[in-house]
């Protein structure tokens, strides 16, 4: 369920980068404050993060389907390390996945940390798992807590993916259709994840129950404030998308004074050139962000000029080939230098 760079607009990606960075900062501060546990649990966090990787290598058969699945591990980390440490551990796993396996992407990292680490660690664990399971090691309560919390964490993450994709405007999938497509799939995955989590937690509860107790007390009011702050930042970013399409104050004044919304171009060459450069470099033209404007898709009404499109594509291919050839030459030159040095030795 990794969000991908190619489906994100920089505005949405940026908002979630800030949100995730804020939660990493908050969690790190909380961990540093637990002075007596800092050094004890730090190596454990590293090894538990590695455990998530390792556990994902072991597949199991999903009953009744014939297919196989693997453990996600977010909830297990939260049950063993507490919310803040689990969040940091999951975030670090996602950073490694992004850099070494190119899962998601640099901009999507913020979204992925928010979707896959924030919900299980800060929502599903303290508000669902802990409430249902408490400190009980009863198998039934563990089962209900694990399945419900894993399901809730996964569904919230999937919903967040749909919201991020829809707000980015890169996908044409309507919000309703996308939700209908994503939620049932993740509901089924959530049940499997919940049952697998229950299986592992039950095993740990029977063999080393002390590992399941979260000794660190999370301060929920502060955590809630963080969650609300994150939501406020996200909403602030999103609501600005629906900024009024009516003219702003200056445009209104211009319109009243000159009878037109925007003043006409002077028409000289320099003005036209700078306008063209500005148009090319405009990352958020008219605040349209990821949404399609008529300017972006002139063919929406009539097919675009074939000659212009072919010229543009040829230019792109040409640049691709020329720079690629340069790279190849540089690489070969470097290799031949290495061989020469070896021969000299």
């Amino acid at each position, binding site marked *: 369920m990794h969000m991908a760079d190619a489906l994100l607009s920089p505005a949405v990606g940026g908002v979630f980068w800030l949100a995730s960075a804020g939660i990493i900062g908050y969690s790190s501060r909380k961990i540093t404050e637990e002075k007596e546990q800092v050094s004890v649990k730090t190596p454990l966090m590293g090894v538990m*993060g590695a455990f998530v990787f390792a556990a994902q290598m072991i597949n199991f058969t999903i009953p009744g389907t014939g297919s196989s699945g693997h453990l996600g591990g977010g909830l297990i980390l939260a049950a063993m390390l507490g919310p803040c440490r689990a969040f940091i551990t999951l975030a670090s796993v996602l950073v490694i996945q992004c850099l070494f396996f190119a899962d998601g992407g640099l901009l999507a990292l913020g979204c992925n940390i928010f979707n896959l680490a924030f919900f299980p660690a800060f929502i599903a664990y303290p508000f669902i798992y802990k409430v249902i399971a408490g400190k009980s090691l009863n198998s039934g309560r563990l089962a209900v807590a694990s399945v419900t919390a894993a399901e809730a964490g996964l569904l919230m993450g999937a919903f967040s993916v749909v919201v991020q994709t829809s707000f980015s405007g890169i996908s044409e999938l309507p919000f309703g259709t996308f939700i209908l497509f994503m939620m049932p799939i993740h509901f089924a995955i959530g049940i499997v994840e919940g049952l697998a989590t229950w299986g592992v937690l039950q*095993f740990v509860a029977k063999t080393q129950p002390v590992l399941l107790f979260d000794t660190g007390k999370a301060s929920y009011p502060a955590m809630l404030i963080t969650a609300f702050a994150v939501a406020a930042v996200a909403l602030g970013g999103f609501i600005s998308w629906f900024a009024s399409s009516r003219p702003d104050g200056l445009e209104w004044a211009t319109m009243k004074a000159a009878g037109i919304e925007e003043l006409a171009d002077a028409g000289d060459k320099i003005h036209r050139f700078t306008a063209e450069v500005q148009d090319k470099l405009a990352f958020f033209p008219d605040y349209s962000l990821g949404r399609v404007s008529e300017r972006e898709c002139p063919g929406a009404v009539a097919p675009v000029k074939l000659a212009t499109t072919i010229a543009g594509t040829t230019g792109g291919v040409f640049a691709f080939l020329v720079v690629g050839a340069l790279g190849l030459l540089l690489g070969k030159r470097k290799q031949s230098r290495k061989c020469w040095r070896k021969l000299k030795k």
Partner: protein
Amino acid sequence: MLEETEKVIMPREQNIHESFIPDVNHRALIIVWSFFVFFVLTLGKYDFSGVLAYAAFPLFVVLAGNMPVKTILKRLVLLSPFIIMVAAANPFFDRRPFLSLGEITLTAGTVSGIVIVGKSFVLITAIITLSTIVPFHRLCDALRGFRVPEVFITQLLLLCRYSFLLVEEATALQKARSMRSFGGNGKEFFTTAKMIGSLLLRANERGERIYRGMLARGFNGTVHHAGAEPLRCKDVLFVAGSVMLFAGIRVIV
């Protein structure tokens, strides 16, 4: 997959000094790559020529840096099903005519779908090149320079160190189970959960052993380091030059 990455990425660390990239601060490299991602993502929804032009940058880095092209291509083939699903849906939801080639008319949705896949290829290659050029511990040093909390950096370093060890252990467990299981026996849901549980307990014990070992070597909660390298004038020039190059591509194409 992790083993394959180890083979591909880790040996490259030895070649860093021979890299074609000038001697610049790793923070500057991260900034340049981030700008590249930003420029690619702000391309128009239908700007296929732009995607092609920006693809030249990772292609140049791959070829000039003698990076393993086959491995990168293999990774590109494993495109996320989520991206494929979203890209494949676009032609169904946006049927407006976009480009006519004789009798064939490409719809806007088809073009935007192709652009999504193209951008994914370019950005995945870009990330692979960054992680190949910058060794992981240097990347962590660079993160220190960006004021990332020390707890998070220590976690990243420990995770990277122990991932390979635990993955080896998990692979051995998986292999042992496969050798003893016939017709899928022993691969059932709850049997595997117990197996993962025992791996978890082993990981925990390993964590305690590591902690004792680290304490004996003077560990006090954070890993000792030399501090982040300061940004020099040439690093700033490198970033500025690269950004101007990316902007230039945008203006020309």
